[in-house]
């Protein structure tokens, strides 16, 4: 991980760590904080705790997003301090979820924009002049448009991949596929490195092909406190606990000092959470396979 981040994530990059609730790569975010990357444009539908931590650590110059909260709990307070504070240091570029999804879809298809039926009557286009309109050449109706998003680097956490980066994901898929295809560089972080034969045994499960992947990192538990379906559950206690930690910038600094700067890697981070793996390891509920014979 250390090598992949130092090699593929540079100061000033547009960085995407995607995953909707599921498969959010906290391990990569922490490594970026440890390597003290600066002036990043952080892009994600839901900044979530990981970008709250990266904002608090001073990695971010700008945030491109659609919903910035702690799901089911409350606020991202480091984000709020950066926005509500006098002379807010954090630049914002804001869309709705559909708008962000459409930006990734355009980027992945190498189209300069994506049309969508959205935003009529809302204040969002006033807050973000990049939300524009286009007229349909057949019906004459006006549609909203968003510009393509083509990040410098996207980090995708996944259940498994082979050494070439052929990546399989099940459970919630978010916009992982679109983000990977839209990106100039792609780092895939997996719970498990598998033989190519495992991938070839069920090709319909492959979401991202190796030809778009720059590096594969094996990092078990790399998504905690997010989750990896079939490997470990979401650590909802930590999401609740984050409310109090992030509310107090001193406590947040202590958290980063102990759990991010204070550890050399993910293994050490997990070691600092006794009982965590017992508490969250997924139970087994394996589905049946399908017949690829002919």
């Amino acid at each position, binding site marked *: 991980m250390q090598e992949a981040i130092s090699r593929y994530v540079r100061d000033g990059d547009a960085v995407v760590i995607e995953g*909707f*609730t*599921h498969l959010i790569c906290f391990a990569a975010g922490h490594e970026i904080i440890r390597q003290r990357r600066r002036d990043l444009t952080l892009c994600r*539908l*839901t900044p979530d705790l990981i970008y709250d931590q990266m904002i608090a650590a001073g990695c971010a110059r700008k945030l491109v*997003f*659609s*919903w*910035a*909260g702690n*799901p*089911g709990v409350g*606020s991202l307070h480091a*984000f*709020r301090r950066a*926005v*509500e504070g006098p002379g*807010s240091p954090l630049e914002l570029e*804001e*869309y*709705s*979820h*559909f708008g962000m*999804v*459409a930006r*990734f*879809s355009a980027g992945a298809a190498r189209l300069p924009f994506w049309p*969508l*039926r*959205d*935003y*009529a*009557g*809302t*204040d*969002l286009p*006033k*807050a973000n002049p990049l939300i524009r309109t286009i007229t349909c050449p057949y019906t004459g*109706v*006006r549609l909203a448009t968003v510009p393509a998003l083509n990040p410098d680097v996207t980090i995708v956490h996944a259940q498994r991949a082979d050494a070439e980066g052929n990546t399989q994901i*099940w*459970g*919630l*898929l*978010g*916009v*992982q*596929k*679109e983000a990977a295809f839209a990106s100039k560089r792609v780092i895939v972080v997996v719970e498990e490195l598998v033989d190519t034969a495992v991938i070839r045994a069920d090709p319909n499960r492959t979401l991202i092909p190796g030809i778009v992947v720059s590096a594969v990192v094996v990092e078990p538990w790399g998504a905690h406190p997010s*989750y990896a*379906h079939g490997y470990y*559950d*979401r650590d*909802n206690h930590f*999401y609740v606990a984050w409310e109090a930690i992030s509310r107090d910038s001193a406590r947040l600094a202590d958290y980063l000092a102990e759990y991010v700067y204070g550890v050399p890697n993910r293994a050490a981070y997990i070691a600092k959470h006794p009982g965590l793996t017992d508490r969250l390891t997924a139970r087994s*509920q394996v589905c049946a396979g399908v017949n690829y014979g002919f």
Partner: protein
Amino acid sequence: MMAAVAARELADGEVVFVGIGLPNLACNLARATHAPNLVLIYESGAVGASPSRLPVSIGDPALVTGSLMVCGMADVFQLFLQNGRIEVGFLGGAQVDRWGNINTTVIGDYARPKVRLPGSGGASEIAAHAHRTLVMAKLDPRAFPEHVDFLTSPGHRCRGIPRRELGLPGAGPVKVITDKAVLEADPKKGELVLAALYPGVRPEAVRAGVSWELRTRTTLLELPPPTARELQLLREVLDPRKLYLKS
């Protein structure tokens, strides 16, 4: 009571775009009572979810395991929502105004907000495309201003322009379910009016919770309290740990 009232609004077999919290409780209450065939769709990509535990996030693995389908978010927004397949959408927000517009973005000025809220998420497009939306919010004059500070999700009249002129496919917020009463959109003007009171609530108590001159529908109903069965399901089965039920 809010969850019970919301549940009663759902017809069996309807396709519902569900949020976390009270809407999720309401949907599961409806499934456990009069609407077993409700199809729950979450913006995270779970379709026909049948959660084995109360989901604490919209991306809870319990929404995936045992669901009918999982798809990427591009499909959720394009093939389901924009395609017009969602019949009911649930919305909430820090501010709901006289015309059913919702603000989940900022309190105060956008550039220098007093309070920075999470933002739209999927709310803006749900408000546009769901055949009808149900809004859930607790009464409070600050939460029910004449006009929202920021218009995140369109209601029946946006900055003076009637909804139909904006070309929005859905009917918009037909009902606002509060902690004391249900407000409805006036069919003609689209203004929210007092439509039904919860047991023992007086109209003044509702008017005190909104910052405009709240009109009352010609026929003001009084809603029956939650049945013993509804309360038992909510308290013992659906939310035993009181994650979302305050009382």
